[in-house]
């Protein structure tokens, strides 16, 4: 498996471990106050962000140790093409999500509901980004 595919899997894993529990807790807590500021929500988000960074940090150290040569090799033209395609796909998800969150949601939601919806869209765009990278390497495209 190419090094860059491994790092894409790592990013997907880190997001799943950090943000699936976060959004599950937020959803379960949705009946409580969502007004700003909410220290509980901030603390939850901080924990999720720290968990994600810790998984990414340890994971990258492990992958770099496992294949130091590949880790140091700059991306070749196919890696760049895959990166460009994945970022382009994620852009459409992100822009669609931001239109929804920024232009539609303010009419019927407020506070942390909007913030969490924006986070969902960002995470979704990242999932699409790394998902396209993984799929491209799997298909050899």
């Amino acid at each position, binding site marked *: 498996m*190419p090094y860059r595919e491994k790092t894409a899997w790592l990013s997907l894993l880190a997001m799943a471990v950090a943000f699936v529990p976060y959004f599950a807790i937020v959803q379960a807590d949705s009946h409580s106050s969502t007004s700003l500021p909410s220290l509980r929500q901030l603390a939850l988000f901080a924990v999720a962000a720290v968990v994600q960074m810790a998984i990414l940090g340890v994971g990258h150290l492990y992958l770099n140790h496992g294949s130091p040569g*590949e880790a140091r*090799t700059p991306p*070749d*033209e*196919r*890696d760049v*093409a895959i990166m460009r395609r994945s970022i382009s796909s994620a852009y459409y998800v992100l822009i669609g999500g931001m239109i929804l969150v920024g232009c539609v949601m303010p009419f019927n939601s407020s506070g942390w509901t909007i913030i969490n919806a924006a986070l969902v869209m960002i995470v979704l765009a990242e999932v699409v980004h790394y998902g396209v990278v993984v799929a491209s*390497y799997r*298909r*050899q*495209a």
Partner: protein
Amino acid sequence: MDESITNRIRFLRFQNGEMSQAELGQRIGVTRQTIAAIEAGKYSPSLAAAFRIARVFNVPLDQVFQWDATDVSSKQT
């Protein structure tokens, strides 16, 4: 890669002392996986990479990559 484009990289590698994909990749500045993808017709290399491949085997470009023009014209009709 367009289905009408084929290549003979695998044949040329074996004709050149059974050169490995990794060695060819190293000589033209791409990874082994990229050579595998080009050979399988899943990825179209840049023009520069295509010329570098031809230079490694010391053959003209059209002996490495072939384009079936009839395939395209049949799609247009």
